[in-house]
């Protein structure tokens, strides 16, 4: 089956992202397709390539990246909501340029896109599961 995931919380503060990651990993292992993971609210912080956890802790950002969730065109399907991301200081190269900001912090395994991607995930997937606070 095609499953999509919505994550409403950032890493470390809440368990939501960890649970969603374990769920996604198990779904892939069972032969299901993760159509898209959509990061919303503080969930956008899961995409920061500057995350540096202590050595004996899990790296949640790298965990997500390791699942290598991509579409047929090779684009990442770890999708960060652009509106939620911009207001929280999460930018990719394109958004940094557009907004005149001299840096970007989105991990290459993720991509920034609009809220329509969440609706589309709901339409295209057999199931959509929300993880939050």
């Amino acid at each position, binding site marked *: 089956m095609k499953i999509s995931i919505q994550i409403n919380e950032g890493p470390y503060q809440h368990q939501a992202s960890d649970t969603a990651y374990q769920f996604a990993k198990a779904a892939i292992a069972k032969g299901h397709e993760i159509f898209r993971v959509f990061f*919303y609210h503080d969930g956008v912080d899961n995409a920061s390539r500057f995350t540096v956890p202590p050595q004996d802790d899990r790296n949640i950002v790298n965990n997500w990246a390791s699942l290598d969730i991509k579409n047929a065109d090779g684009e990442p399907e770890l999708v960060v909501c652009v509106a*939620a991301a911009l207001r929280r200081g999460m930018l990719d190269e394109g958004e940094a340029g557009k907004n005149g900001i001299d840096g970007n912090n989105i991990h290459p395994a993720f991509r920034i896109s*609009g809220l*329509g991607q*969440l*609706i589309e995930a*709901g*339409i295209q997937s057999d199931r959509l599961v*929300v993880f*939050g606070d």
Partner: protein
Amino acid sequence: MAIKKFMYLNRRAPYGTVYALESLEVVLIAAAFDQDVSLAFMDDGVYQLVEGQKTDGIGMKNFSKTFHALGDYDINQFFVSAESLEERGLSVDDLMPLVWEDEDDDWAEKPSIKVVPNAELTKIMSEQDVCLSF
């Protein structure tokens, strides 16, 4: 592709957290997708619809006005838990008079908000294909 039934489940009050505002932003985008959209308001989520919100004193945008625009986008199924209202000492008269115009009925103005008991909310929820929680 068949139209799906989407429910937006709102259980949090506005302003204290960003969930209500960002949920509304999703609903505005959802309007462009021609799906069957309904909004459920339970628990403190009912406060999102309360009339007379005034945010000058907290330096935040009063986004409650945006709910009035949703009727123009055919988003007119607002289901409010009767029990949640009653527990909070509220009634439908405390909520914003949200309306939509029914083109099949000579553009008659009709209320978008329906106060329903939890038993009916249960039934509505069980008919959904996708439930987005905020």
